[in-house]
């Protein structure tokens, strides 16, 4: 099983490295949006709540396309059946989840300093900010991976993915915004981080159990 997960992960990174689709689109979107927000703010320092909210809106919409792509690419290019006949469903789900976690972490690692620089954000507790960002990213990746697998089988995949994901991602997004605001203001983020980790754990467990039913075609 570990070999199958490693093989799938290596394959996904090789393809992404050669095409750079998910990361290129996400990082370009993130850079343009951050710059646009910065120009709109016109150098005025925003309130911590607004800063946290804008940070997560940029991160969420930047990541959406890349996160969906991990499954939609397999269906669009006709490689999904090859994947089905070679790898157990559990290995496919685990590898795609790990890939999506890596993608959103890279996006967050690029956006965070850009955002802090262009929007003149001073974070009172950088370690709390990092913890809230990591926990929020994990929650988004864990909820969107299984949704991407479902959406990949439907038409109008790209637009459908963001619409379907939004209600599922809304609760962790709400909590992540609160935790990020607390980190910027120098308050404790423990409660928010614990919620986000628990949310991710529950979603990953349920998705792992249900994935086999989603993965085999009717």
């Amino acid at each position, binding site marked *: 099983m570990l070999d199958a997960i490693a093989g799938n992960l290596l394959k996904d990174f090789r393809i992404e490295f*050669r095409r750079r689709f998910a990361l290129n689109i996400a990082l370009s979107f993130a850079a343009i949006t951050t710059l646009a927000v910065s120009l709109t703010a016109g150098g005025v320092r925003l309130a911590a709540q607004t800063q946290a909210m804008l940070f997560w809106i940029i991160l969420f919409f930047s990541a959406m396309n890349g996160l969906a792509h991990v499954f939609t690419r397999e269906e669009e290019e006709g490689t999904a059946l*090859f994947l089905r006949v070679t790898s157990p469903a559990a290995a496919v789900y685990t590898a795609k989840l790990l890939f999506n976690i890596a993608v959103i972490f890279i996006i967050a690692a690029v956006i965070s300093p850009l955002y802090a620089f262009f929007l003149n954000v001073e974070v009172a507790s950088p370690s709390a900010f990092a913890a809230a960002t990591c926990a929020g990213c994990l929650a988004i990746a864990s909820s969107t991976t299984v949704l991407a697998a479902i959406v990949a089988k439907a038409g109008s995949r790209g637009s459908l993915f963001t619409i379907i994901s939004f209600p599922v991602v809304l609760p962790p997004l709400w909590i992540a915004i609160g935790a990020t605001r607390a980190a910027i203001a120098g308050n404790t983020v423990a409660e928010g981080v614990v919620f986000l980790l628990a949310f991710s754990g529950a979603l990953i467990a349920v998705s792992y159990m249900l994935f086999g039913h989603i993965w085999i075609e009717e």
Partner: protein
Amino acid sequence: MRNSEITIRAHSLSKRFDRTMIFEGVSFSLGTGESIAVTGPNGSGKSTLCDIVAGIRRPTGGSLEYILNGTAQSEDGPLNAIGIASPRVNPYDELTGMENVDFAARARGVDPSTALPLFESFGLNRHRDKALRHYSSGMRQRLKLILAVLHRPPLLILDEPGSNLDSDGKRQLAGYIESLRAHTAIVIATNDREDAMLCAGAVSLA
């Protein structure tokens, strides 16, 4: 999976897409050392039946039994006991032939170096480090056949195996199937007489 014995029993399989019944009442039994050709006109469900037997699609009705070395397996099919080459099962264009093999081998717990003689047998040795997007359709078909037999599956499903192959490729394929015959159960979906002649039995879909 080498030296595994398999028996597949299909009972009254049917498949419906929306309101269209593709086929119904398909029953057959197949064991190691046996082979069947699935024939029928276009749209009769040959590829769909192959997908169902491979465990990548569920039938609407009926059931499939897989017995591997005397033990009944799950209805979705024992993944590692099945090899399939089909026009709908496409390897990755961005990867080279060898990288596709490496991926499939790792996923199936097989040493990727076991594919090297297969590249030689199927005349693809010179092209194994080329990205698939530079392969011709015949070369792709040869790679699909390598990927199907890489793990020495006791059940081999070939959907239109001769498509896109030149006469040399067809000869190599026939020779390779002949060498597998004694220890493999083989299903070939085809309308090509030459391909169908490789099999002892037949399932005809109307």
